[in-house]
């Protein structure tokens, strides 16, 4: 099998038994998410286990494309029962970049299955196919950076980094790639992240806490092996074609404000928008990437930290000091050293500050804390705050459960979700793109198991018009053109998928938008491993007529590395199959249609949008069609209608071939997809229609 090593590592942490499975037995699932969900389904007999139960099994799977020269494909997927979602611990996925995916394959494995729980702290050392479970007592309590440094020295030995060293199969000068948790994960935080290198994280899902519950501190991989592809010459030609025709030219960049936010465009370039550090000096990238979106700084603080890694404390730093100081980078690093999910911190701090301002939280207040909220923006505050969260001290013991559970402990959940001051939006995850405006984002999240975090439509549907229009600039692609391009996509061929007018947001068209997003992302991004920062690529200032590389690029890449020519429709059908296997697990966990809804404020409180241009009112510009005419129009203020949302759910379930009354799958549809095993298990549990 091209792109595969042929072996899946299976580690039982309870018994310390190490074994392997043959990747060829899972050939149809390719790699990444497809392979991971198939393994989870087969190996976990009781899928209703809790996140911290030793029966929870985690599968870590490098993406199918990883290890090869395909750009922006060094992603690793992890699945299992998550700790973050509220009120249910849904089966979920999380994803990380960096070096791990490639190095895992070079070390000999297409996936790593982690079962059981170790009796005492353990780390796993994998070098060229050799696997060793090692006592991690000396690492327990160390932060993620120090842990990696100790493991680097352990694996590299006396030769030192940057010198040739022999393994049993080859020679290398490279460091191992290490996944590790920090103190937050050790203390079973639902905000616990798994970190690799300086700023790459399995962030969402609270899987760091799950690792902690398994006494698993770290996994190190080092390999000298190869990844074979069907046609190296073709892959080289395609890579160069993609870079030269769709990639950014860093020596003559085209500057648009929305390119400062590298979300799903292949022509993204290094920039200061996502990495706001004044002392940024270099752009760095994951293995094989062409985007290189991560910063390196002259101080080292903030290295590899982008978006919320920096943003979560940036505005507090700015408010306190009138400028972004080195504290932003320090805070970014500290969260990652502790192994805490920065995304949740971002919204969490705003909520806690609101409670502080209301006089509810603070020293001697109802929610009593010695964390100095009057010093937000300073080092002193963030040190105390993150330490309490990571080590479950003071109110950190509540916050580390995630804000919805903390609010519940404080007796505030109902009040604060009705008012919307606690901006949890989908399964307790913080608001990301607001479902009251960018509806498909919330829809895909709520029929899934987490903040969907798929930016595929996000450039034309939000960033480009919402930054350009208030700034009196004309977007480089019209709303009508965007709709036309999306309308050329199988299987729906429906331009109305891009119509975000209020009259269209509960329609079958928006059900198609949601389904397309889920099927595309599951196959191309989470399984093949194309990075969400680069794909899907609809609008691209470097492409012909400003059009992106999707779907031509994806299909060319697939053909070069596998030798198989597939149609785009086939790829989306594979994504649909994988999504259906996710769905079967959720149903086996107890999911029912009635559970899939948003907090009250989504149905009663308007979102106002954001003001990006000083003096301009907040807005949220999206493609809409009104009176037969396409344009980018401001869709806010807006909130969702609960009854109409329920009607949308019916349309979505019917589109997926699911029972609209329960949201459960149907035997016939699962059989057609080749998911007979899932159908049998659902039937045995009485959850198949």
């Amino acid at each position: 099998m091209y792109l595969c090593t042929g072996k899946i590592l299976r580690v039982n942490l309870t018994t310390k038994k190490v074994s392997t499975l043959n990747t060829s037995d899972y050939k149809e699932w390719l790699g990444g998410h497809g392979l991971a969900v198939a393994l989870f389904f087969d190996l976990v007999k009781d899928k209703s286990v809790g996140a911290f139960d030793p029966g929870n099994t985690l599968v870590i799977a490098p993406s199918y494309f990883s290890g090869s020269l395909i750009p922006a494909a060094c992603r690793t997927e992890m699945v299992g029962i998550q700790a973050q979602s509220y009120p249910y611990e849904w089966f979920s996925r999380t994803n990380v970049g960096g070096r791990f995916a490639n190095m895992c394959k070079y070390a000999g494995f297409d996936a790593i299955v982690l079962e059981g729980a170790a009796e005492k702290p353990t780390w796993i050392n994998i070098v060229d196919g050799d696997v060793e479970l090692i006592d991690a007592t000396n690492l327990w309590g160390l932060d993620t950076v120090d842990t990696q440094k100790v493991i680097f020295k352990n694996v590299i030995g006396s030769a030192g980094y940057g010198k040739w060293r022999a393994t049993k199969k080859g020679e290398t000068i490279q460091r191992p790639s290490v996944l590790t948790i920090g103190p937050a994960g050790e203390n079973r935080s639902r905000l616990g992240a798994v970190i690799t290198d300086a700023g790459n994280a399995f962030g969402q899902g609270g899987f760091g806490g799950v690792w902690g519950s398994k006494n698993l501190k770290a996994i190190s991989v080092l390999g000298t092996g190869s990844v074979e592809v069907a046609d190296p010459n073709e892959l080289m030609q395609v890579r160069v074609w993609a870079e030269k025709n769709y990639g950014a030219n860093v020596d003559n960049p085209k500057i648009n404000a929305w390119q400062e936010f590298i979300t799903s465009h292949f022509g993204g370039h290094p920039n200061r928008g996502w990495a706001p550090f004044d002392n940024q000096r270099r752009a760095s990238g994951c293995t094989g990437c062409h985007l290189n979106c991560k910063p390196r700084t002259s101080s080292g603080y903030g290295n590899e930290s982008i978006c919320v890694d920096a943003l979560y404390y940036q505005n507090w730093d700015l408010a306190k000091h009138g400028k972004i100081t080195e504290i932003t980078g320090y805070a970014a690093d500290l969260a990652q050293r502790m192994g805490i999910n920065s995304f949740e911190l971002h919204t969490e701090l705003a909520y806690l500050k609101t409670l502080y301002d209301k006089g509810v939280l603070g020293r001697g207040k109802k929610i009593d804390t010695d964390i100095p909220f009057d010093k937000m923006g300073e080092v002193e505050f963030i040190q105390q705050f993150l330490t309490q969260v990571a080590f479950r001290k003071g109110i950190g013991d509540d916050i580390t459960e995630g804000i919805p559970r903390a609010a519940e402990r404080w007796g505030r959940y109902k009040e604060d979700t009705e008012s919307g001051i606690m901006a949890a939006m989908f399964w307790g995850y913080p608001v990301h793109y607001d479902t009251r405006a960018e509806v498909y984002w919330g829809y895909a999240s709520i029929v899934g198991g987490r903040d969907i975090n798929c930016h595929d439509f996000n450039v034309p549907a939000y960033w480009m018009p919402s930054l350009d229009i208030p700034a009196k600039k004309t977007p480089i692609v019209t709303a009508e053109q965007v709709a036309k391009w999306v309308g050329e996509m199988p299987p729906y061929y429906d331009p109305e998928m891009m119509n975000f007018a209020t009259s269209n947001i509960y329609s079958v068209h928006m059900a198609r938008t949601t389904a397309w997003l889920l099927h595309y992302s599951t196959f191309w991004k989470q399984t093949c491993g194309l990075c969400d920062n680069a794909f899907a690529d609809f609008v691209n200032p470097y492409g012909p007529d400003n059009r992106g590389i999707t779907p031509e690029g994806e299909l060319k890449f697939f053909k070069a590395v596998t030798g198989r020519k597939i149609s785009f429709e086939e790829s989306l059908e594979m994504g649909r199959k994988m999504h259906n296997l996710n769905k079967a697990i959720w149903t086996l966990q107890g999911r029912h249609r009635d559970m899939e809804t948003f907090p009250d404020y989504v149905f009663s409180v308007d979102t106002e949008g954001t003001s990006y241009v000083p003096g301009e009112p907040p807005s949220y510009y999206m493609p809409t069609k009104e009176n037969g005419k396409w344009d980018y129009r401001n869709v806010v203020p807006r909130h969702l209608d609960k009854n109409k949302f329920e009607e949308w759910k019916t349309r979505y379930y019917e589109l997926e071939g699911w029972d609209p009354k329960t949201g459960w799958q149907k035997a016939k549809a699962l059989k057609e997809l080749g998911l007979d095993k899932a159908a049998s298990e659902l039937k045995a549990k009485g959850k198949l229609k």
Partner: protein
Amino acid sequence: MGKDNGDNKNSGMTRRDFVKMSTTVAAALGGAAALTLPSRADAADAKAQTASPSKMFLVVDQKKCAGCMSCMLACSMVHEGSSNLSTARIQIIDDAFAEFPNDIEIAVCRQCADPACYYACPLKDKALCIDPKTGVRYINKKECIGCRKCIEACHFTPSRISFNLKYKVALKCDMCLDTPFWKQTGKQACVEVCPQNAIKFTSEQPSGHKEYNVNLRGEGWAKLGLPTD
């Protein structure tokens, strides 16, 4: 605030190169020479007469490199048919925790004027050869006996010549004169795929460390908010 970067990585290519080169030169010329180190070019001149000069070189911008290792994946693939960090003839040494510019180093063969690897090869002109047309120093894998003498002789750390443990042959940059898995003429895979344009081909012999490590950052780079100095 000070940043703790205390791991076992050496401080930088420049210093490492210099230290090893100095040691080599000092050993060759006697202890006294260590006090007045000759330049790299001077050392090269002493032996240049025995090796015809190369007309093909790679120069790199260490400050522009993103550490993405695309060059390594491409290099190994076009030469060996599969991506492999260990068989890449160009190596990236990346420390994500270090401060710029000490975080990334590009280790690339310099096609030296005094090719110590060439002199050290017991099968000189059969295994380690000089292309008569281009002057490129390359390894004929069919003749290589895997003695490692070229690896040990290389002036630099890490050695710019790697070793394929499976086939017991040395691997070295050949400026992509022979890419059995990539149909092309006159291009270098690393140059073609580098998204940062941080590797550049030149036919002019760089005369020293500074000329191999060039500044390829211009106005466009500055527009991205990144330094050009």
